[in-house]
Every structure is written in structure tokens, then in C-alpha cells.
């Protein structure tokens, strides 16, 4: 399941955020994580992000392949380096720190 930002996102552009969110089933925690992530991205990364949600119950082999220990886990695949954040992303400050995004300052398009 891939959620593209409404605005035209160009994955090849520099500064583009390629995010992957691992969940296990449609649990309240997963749903909270998805909505929290969307909110944070829209606020801070409008137009320059791609979110891929992976349900480990559907694709269990990825749990081992991507070394996922806990859910929900958010992985920033691009830009490098790879960063990981676990939890339902309810603490947006920590998410921004984890994603290396400066808060309160929406990036200019």
C-alpha cells in the first residue's frame, strides 16, 4: 500500500523522503501510526515524501529481511543514512528528530 502525497511528488528529486512504515495487522497502534505519520509529513514534508506501508502479517518474510523487531517501525530509506523509529509516532517531536527534520520550519517547495 503506497500513499503518495497529493501534490506531485518526484521520487527522483533530491531531498525526497522515501519512508516505509511496518505494521502488523490493522491494530489501533498501526492505524494511529499511519495517521500520525501522514499528519507529520503533510505538515513538514509536503510534496516531497513517499510512504509505503507494509503489513508484516501479509508479507512475513520482510520481518526478517528488513530486521524489524518491533511494530510500528518507521524506516527512512531515503535520504541516507537509514533511520529507524519505533512506536505509534504519537510524539511528533521525536519523529522529527528521528527523521532529521527541523521542526516549525516547513520546507520551501
Amino acid at each position, binding site marked *: 500500500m503506497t500513499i503518495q502525497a497529493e501534490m506531485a511528488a518526484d521520487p527522483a528529486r533530491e531531498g525526497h523522503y522515501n519512508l516505509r512504515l*511496518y505494521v*502488523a*495487522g490493522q491494530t489501533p*497502534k498501526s492505524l*494511529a*501510526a499511519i495517521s*500520525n505519520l501522514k499528519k507529520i509529513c503533510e505538515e513538514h514534508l509536503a510534496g516531497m515524501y513517499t510512504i509505503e506501508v507494509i503489513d*508484516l*502479517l501479509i508479507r*512475513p*518474510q520482510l*520481518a*526478517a529481511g528488513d*530486521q*524489524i*523487531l*518491533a*511494530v*510500528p*517501525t518507521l524506516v527512512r530509506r531515503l535520504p541516507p543514512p537509514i*533511520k*529507524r*523509529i*519505533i*512506536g*505509534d*509516532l*504519537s*510524539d*511528533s517531536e*521525536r*519523529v522529527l*528528530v*528521528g527523521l532529521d527534520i527541523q521542526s516549525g520550519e516547513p520546507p520551501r517547495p
Partner: protein
Amino acid sequence: MTDRLASQPVEAHSLAKTATGIDGLDAVTLGGLPEGRPTLLCGSAGCGKTLLAMTFLVNGATRFGEAGVFMSFEERAEDLVENVASLGFDIDGLVADKKLVIDHVRVEPSEIEVSGDYDFEPIFVRLGYAIDQVGAKRVVLDTIEALFSGFKDQAVLRAELRRLFGWLKDRGVTAVITGERGDGQLTRYGIEEYVSDCVILLDNRVHDQVTTRRLRIVKYRGSSHGTNEYPFLIDGSGVSVMPITAAGLQHKISSEKIPTGVPDLDTMFGLGGFYRGSSVLLSGLAGTGKSTFSGWFANSVCTRGERCLYFAFEESPDQIVRNMRSAGMDLQRHIDSGLLSFQSARPSLYGLEMHLTRMYRDIEAFKPAAVIVDPISAFRGVESEIHATLLRLADICKERGITAFFTSLSLASDHASEADRGVSSLMDTWISLTDVEASGERNRVLFVLKSRGMSHSNQMREYMLTAEGIKLIAPYVGPEGVLTGSARQAQEARERDEALSRSQVTERRQRDLDRRRATTERQVAELRAALEAEESEVALLANQESGREDTLVADRAAMAMKRGAAE
């Protein structure tokens, strides 16, 4: 081993068990680990948790047809494969055959940023996926406590672990969870609270610079189990646990004989050898040929086509073979035919119990008819421990009907050193080799101190180690006791001389008699000759006399005639 287990009393409430394939461990747990439940395997660093757990899986896959999953939280899969390759485990092959899955869960605390609630569902997903892939019945989690170092929220972690062990039980897999030993508790983070059906504690203790690994079943819910600490061993052939069963004196005995390998020595025993399955002690001073006797015994066992296991603690196999060649036997051919196996190790290599474990494993694997331990005096340690070790070894052999041949170096010239006295009561037959020092030389003498259940010679016999074997020499008992060596030879020479001179005297007297007889006869002849001479002279004289008379008569007549004519 299975035979022995079968003879165990059947438990009233019998719990299904999963055999580990490690014989000693299955004996101690009376069948294996609780089936479908998690078992905690704990111990400090380097005591063999991972290897034991891996052995459980590999044996499951190769011997019991049960696939397994190894989830490692510490070592990478490649490292694991390499580490256990030394035990001869072909992990890659098992993985390729879909009998084993190795999953390395990387826990890297520095990478993880936490924001909000989370759970460990992916571990369940991963484990479930791996189990489903191969239809696993056995699962190892090594060491799940590593998660504690990666995640600070212990409340979540503990709740998840509890859920995990419950989930494992629901899946019906037999799981082994390893844990690092902590201060004052079995594991560092106290996970024994969650996994408590069966807890096995491994220990690696150093005493007098010698390490001994020990294993203990701390608890086993719903089953009786051995409660002692059992020594175990990890080496090239895997993990062996020595089950020190309460070996009762119930072994079957045999009245069959087994020759000593030295025909002359056989004649000293009423039976013509040892009893099969008995324990024999050969004690002696340095250089009295203990190893040579052992060699001949081994040679005779193998020549009859039986197997012999030779534990050498002082010499390497090659050295023994070379030395025995000079004593007139070829042991190499028995090694080549697979009937003779040498196991050499320095006594200081392991502790006593490790030696015992190793010997136990070798005996189980080789199934010999006779075992030789050369020498038991090489073991150093507390006498009571040595005694216990030898007692167990003797019991192991007796239980299997194996003739055990022990040599022991006596220290003083008195024919029983401390160690001998300690073990002598364990031995059925005791042969003592000793030196007799007299007239500037040492000579070897043997005697049978005891031999249970048969008559035996009470003689001290001198023996020689020759290139044709060991020769016992007929005893020579002189006025000063048993004579040996050149004293015996001198005495024999003296006796020969005496006999010779006695016969010479007789001959001389015979000759004297003959001569005297000859002399007497000669004298008789002379006297007779003289008599005859006299007789003939007398006859002559008589003749002459009569002649003279005639002449006189004639003369007188003639004269008368002459006178007459003139008148």
C-alpha cells in the same frame, strides 16, 4: 541407553518428552525436554549454551525427523554455521534441505529512536513464518535477553516475553531459551520467571587450573529427574553428558574366562585367565613392564577378534606401538583392522570428571570387550575423588560386561601404595609386579595378590620381558627365600657343580675298586705262578734226585766192578 531408560519405572503421570539426542542428558531428564513447552538453558559466558541448543536442533533434524528454527539474537547466521562446523554439523546442508532455519535478529540499540507505543509482534511473525516454512517442532531462542539491551522499556518487554512464551506453548513447539547467568538469579533479567517448566543450569568451574563443565537440572515440572551436577564435555564429537546413575551392583556377571595374554600368567589362575567383565589391577614399580602386560592383554583381546579400547595417559599411541614392537607384538595391525583404539590424553588436560565423561563417551561409541587404563596413578587429585572416579569407571565397565584392566604405578617398594589401597577393594583381580634387589641387581617378580572367585597361585614368580613375550620362570626357592636373576643362576650352577662332583667321587671310587680288584687278581696270579714255578722246580729236583740216585747206583756198580776186577 534406551534400554536403560526403558527399564526405568514408568511415571504414573507420564509427560511427553522430546529427546535431545544427547544420550547422557536424555538419561538425566528421563527422556528429554518437556514436549511442546519452553525450557530455559542458562549459564555464564562460554559454558556451551549455544552449542547445546544447536545440538538439540541438529539431532532433531538428523535423527528424529523434527525440523527446527534457530533464532539468534547475538551471533550472525554465518558465524553460527562456522562455529558449529567444528562439531561436524552441516548447517548449510540442513538449511538447504529445509530441515533447519537460522534467523539472526539484529539488535542494535544505537539505531533505535522511540516515539510512542510499540510491541514485538514482528518477532512473533518472524518466528511463526520460520516455523511454518519447515514445519518446525523445535525452536531455539539464543539469547533472547539481548533484547533488554536494545529496548529500555522493560515493562513492555516483559509483557511481550510472557506473551511470547505463551505463544510458543500454543504453537506446541519444544523450545529452548538460553539465558546469561546473572547475579543472584539464574538469568540476568530474570526471565526464569516466565520459562519455568524446565530449567537447566550449565556451569564451567575452574579448580586447580583445570576446568570442569557441569550441568544440573534445576527444575522439571511434572517429571522426576536426576538432581546432581553432571559433568559434560564439548569436543569434536559434540556434547556428551555423563549420567552418573546410582549404579547399583546389579550387573550381570559372567563366568567365562578371558586370557591374560601371557600364557605363563594364565597358569597362575585357577580359571586360566580373568573372568570376563571383571576389573583387574596391575600395580607395579617403575619399569616393571606394566605397559607390556597391558600390551599383551590388548593383543590377545584383538587377536580373538574382540574390540579393545586403550586409554593411555603417559604415552602417545605411536610410542606404545613402537615400544610393544620391541616386546614382540605388532599392535599396528589391530589398529589398522579397527579392533584396537587408542585414546591418549595428558591427565592434566581435564579434571577427573571430564576424563570420566570422555571415557564414558568413548566406551559408549566404541563398544569394546576390554578397556585398558594405563595408568590410573596418573590421575592427580583428592584421593576420595580419584576413588569415586575409578569406582564409576569400574561400574560403567561392569554394567556392560567389559573387562577393565587398570595399571597403577606404585611409589614405594612396599607392594601397595596409597592409591592402590584405595582402589583395591574395587578390583576383582590384583596382580603385583615388583623388583627384588639382591647381589647387585634388580629382578622382576610378580605375584597374584587376589583374584575373586577362583583359586590362584600363591607363588612369587620371576619373569622376563623377552622379544618373544613375557616368560615366567620356574620359581627357585633356596635357603634364603626366593632366588632371582643371577643369584638363581649362581645357585643353579652351584647345584650343578655339586651334582657333578658327587658323580665324580662315585666314579673315582669305582675306578679305585676296579684297580684294586685288578691288583688283587694280579697278585693271585703271581702267587699262583710262583707256586707253579716251585712245583715245577720241586718236580725237577725230584727228577734230578732220582737221576742222581741212579747215577750213584750205576757209579757204585761201576766202581765195584772196577774194584772187583782188580782184586
